[in-house]
């Protein structure tokens, strides 16, 4: 009997040990989350006081002037992980942000959309002889004495090389489109670069500014220009910026440490010695990690529903503040001007000139107006986006000089109903409006598509509900983002094919000075159709010669103020003709630890553009 019992005891004991090892881990350490680096030795043995949040570990003595590297480790959390640190092969913001820690441009776009010199000694202006009167050349003076992190000198040759690297088509640089206006880049001397543009630029000084223009080291990347780019040291990029790469695990984490050769070091920059850029997971738990547990200091792009995010941020013990950077991103409804009826076969959603038909009811301005009037975008934005979005009437939403004051979009369900009644769209027995158009009875049934995304599906439901109130029937469809934005000409479900009546997504210009590139998306030439393999950006198949004329006029206009005025006119055109229904002006929402100072939200460049100035 005794033997038997003791054996069972052993089993139970081993069970208990297993539970301990598996479940409890080593509970005797405090979360290292917010502790200052100086306390590492002590923290291992401090027993936690159950329930109480770990001491906020704010710097005890008020620091006088911090030296470079005094602030410890900065932990960035992205819900998409870095795959390359080469800014010109970047697959998205997560990659170009990581590259921003390492490489620099001649100038950044600051938080307000205005350029801020980085590698350039000063911004070129007409006054300092920086650019020619005809707007085709610009002279950049470089800061003297800048060094790469390997100790070698940064020179004009590196700028010339970067242009060659990107503009060699075989390199397959994802920034090439931004460089297309550049004809040549020449080194005048060691510290002077001359850039020549193909066409006159209204403001040549900003034509080489921003995320797409980070400068690579010639010595490091010269052997990997062209088709060999994929074999290059893309995870060990050398730069002039505040940090250098220690270790990169693609799709997971990249660790950086201070670049001792950074020119800001004597001024105490950067304050953070190390940076850990961790990727993966999802936005809501990123918010948790920054705001509730303090496991991370900075959470990128928190696309989290207001109902989830607000309590986390507004809690009394929240460790974060939410930084909102309103840029040009607008969630919009695109209204198809052509008939997507499957019965048309090959000719569905084709412009009339290509044998298609106009849309049976969306061609009617009154219908488009009624559809807009039914939607309360302000309520939609507050309910679904919270701090990271506001209802908007415009498609051009920043910078302030470009925001139109001539548009309005007050919701008015009764007005919408009246408008449709007056236009002859009457409700049938099923409550859905219909009208005889061209001898055929047309029922207002809308196929409304977007990407698979929890927030978007809620928006769809919101809009469907609103349209039901004016007698419009809505059928919802959602497609995986990878398919929806696919360039596959054989796939009928893409946004460009637009085999639906209405579709929804967000788009934005890539910098505060490229609005015109973006507005190009509604000129006739850009109409997406079979003959151009659906490769152009005018998905609505909107074509109007007055709009084209405005666009051409803006292209030629070299006076900034006049050009801005034309862009406002173009915005009004797109909005008043209801080419699209703007819904929500979206802002990047970033959560950042309360103890970090110096962060300036920036929708126009990388959020990490001034990371060297961040302190604690």
């Amino acid at each position, binding site marked *: 009997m005794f033997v038997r019992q003791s054996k069972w005891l052993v089993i139970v004991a081993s*069970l208990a040990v297993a539970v301990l090892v598996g479940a409890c881990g080593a509970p*005797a350490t405090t979360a290292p989350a917010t502790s200052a680096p100086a306390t590492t030795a002590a923290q291992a043995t401090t027993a936690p006081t159950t329930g109480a949040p770990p001491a906020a570990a704010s710097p005890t003595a008020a620091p006088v002037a911090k030296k470079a590297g005094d602030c410890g480790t900065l932990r960035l959390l992205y819900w998409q992980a870095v795959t*390359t640190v080469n800014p010109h092969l970047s*697959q998205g913001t997560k990659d170009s942000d990581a590259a921003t820690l390492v490489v620099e441009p001649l100038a950044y776009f600051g938080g307000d959309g205005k350029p801020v010199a980085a590698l350039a000694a000063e911004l070129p202006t007409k006054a300092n002889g920086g650019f020619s009167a005809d707007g085709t050349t610009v002279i950049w003076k470089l800061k003297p004495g800048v060094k790469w992190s390997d100790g070698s000198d940064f020179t004009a040759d590196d700028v010339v090389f970067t242009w060659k690297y990107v503009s060699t088509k075989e390199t397959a640089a994802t920034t090439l489109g931004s460089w297309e206006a550049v004809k040549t880049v020449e080194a005048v001397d060691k510290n002077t670069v001359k850039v020549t543009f193909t066409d006159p630029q209204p403001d040549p000084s900003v034509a080489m500014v921003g995320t797409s223009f980070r400068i690579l080291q010639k010595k490091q990347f010269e052997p990997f220009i062209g088709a060999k780019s994929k*074999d290059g040291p893309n995870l060990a990029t050398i730069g002039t910026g505040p940090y250098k790469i220690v270790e990169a695990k693609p799709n997971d984490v990249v660790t950086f440490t201070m670049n001792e050769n950074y020119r800001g070091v004597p001024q105490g920059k950067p304050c953070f010695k190390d940076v850990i850029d961790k990727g993966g997971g999802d936005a809501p738990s990123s918010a*948790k990690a920054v705001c509730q547990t303090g496991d991370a200091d900075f959470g990128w792009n928190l696309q989290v529903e207001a109902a989830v995010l607000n309590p986390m941020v507004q809690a009394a013990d929240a460790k974060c503040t939410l930084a909102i950077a309103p840029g040009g991103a607008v969630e919009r409804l695109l209204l198809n001007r052509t008939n997507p009826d499957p019965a048309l076969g090959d000719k569905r959603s084709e412009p009339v000139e290509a044998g298609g038909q106009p849309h049976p009811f969306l061609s009617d301005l009154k219908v488009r107006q009624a559809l807009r009037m039914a939607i309360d975008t302000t309520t939609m934005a507050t309910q679904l986006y919270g701090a990271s979005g506001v209802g908007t009437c415009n498609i051009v939403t920043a910078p302030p000089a470009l925001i139109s004051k001539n548009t309005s979009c007050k919701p008015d369900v009764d007005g919408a109903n009246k408008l449709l009644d007056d236009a002859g769209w009457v409700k049938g027995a099923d409550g859905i409006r219909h009208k005889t158009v061209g001898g055929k009875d047309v029922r207002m049934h809308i196929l409304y598509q977007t990407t698979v995304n929890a927030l978007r599906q809620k928006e769809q439901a919101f809009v469907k509900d609103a349209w039901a109130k004016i007698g419009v029937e809505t059928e919802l469809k959602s497609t995986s983002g*990878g398919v929806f934005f696919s*360039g596959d000409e054989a796939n009928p479900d893409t946004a460009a094919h637009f085999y639906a009546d209405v579709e929804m997504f967000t788009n934005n210009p890539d910098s505060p000075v490229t609005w015109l590139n973006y507005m190009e998306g509604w000129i006739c030439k850009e109409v997406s159709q079979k003959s151009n393999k659906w490769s152009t950006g005018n998905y609505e198949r909107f074509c109007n010669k007055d709009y084209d004329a405005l666009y051409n006029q803006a292209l030629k206009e070299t006076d900034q103020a006049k050009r801005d005025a034309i862009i406002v006119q173009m915005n009004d055109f797109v909005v008043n003709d209801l080419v699209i229904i703007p819904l929500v002006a979206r802002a990047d929402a970033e959560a950042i630890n309360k103890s970090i100072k110096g962060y300036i939200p920036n929708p126009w460049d990388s959020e990490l553009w001034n990371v060297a100035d961040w302190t604690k």
Partner: protein
Amino acid sequence: MPRPYAYWCKMNQYLIRRLLIAIPTLIGISFVIFAVVNIAPNDPMAQFALNPAVPPEVRENIRHQLGLDQPWPIRYVQWLGAAVQGNLGYSFNSRLPVLTLLSYRLPSTLWVLGMAYIISILLAIPIGILSAVKQYSLIDHLVSAFAFIGFSVPTFFTGVLLILIFSVKLHWLPFIYDSTLVVKDLDSLGQLLKQSAMPIMVLGLFETATLARFIRAAMLENLPLDYVRTARAKGITEYMVIMRHAFRNSMLPVITLIALGVPGVFGGALITEQIFRVPGIGSLLVSSLDTSDIPVIIGITVIYSVLVVLFNLVADILYGFLDPRIKYT
């Protein structure tokens, strides 16, 4: 007991035959995977669709650089040729060899899933035996309840629940897995245990529940049999009856189940790894699916299928070792 020469000879023949059969099986599997992934309408270029910096000709260039401009059957032959030589191609996203990417990921996955697996085996065996021996007792009911909760509550729920309890409320455990952590002393070992505790718990709960139910059922099948009664009649202790006789025989199907579960340890845990940001094979697969990183998707699934085929064989061989009644012909 020692086995005759003829047994080993047969055994060898059997092994060789099974390995030969595995080759066409694996080629078939890889073909199906390749076809499905490539026919699927996801486009690796989709992320650039609205990016004005990436005009269509750049997209074409990237497509060419990735070799996507060739029809997939040709790419399959090229891929197979390279795969036989141990080259699974390059990731579209990071442009690194797939095998290198996997080698970054395997340690985390093996550590977290392996620990969860070992712990759940260690827990499930005593729990399963106990609940079978004390059938319909309070313990048995508790175990059954635990088991049903374990395999019916999804990991995305238990995962988030644990985060809320241990990270957000109690601040005991971090929920972001740090793969840069190097274990060099007790302190860092403690950190490793802390950061892997929650994913191991989540996965362990599920595995333990499944295995415990299975072991209980196997034991219940054996306990009423004649040989057990004979053993009792010999007068040996109840403990010996259960452990020496009933348990050994019940383990046969359990061993198969455990062996077949091993490929899963290498394959990673899709949801749990995602929740806790464990940089394992599972989360790599999820992010590759998101961005249509075809070579990585194919690499992971093919390696997984190799392991499944391999461990099927291992299970069959183990079975023969444990049960002398089984003959290889």
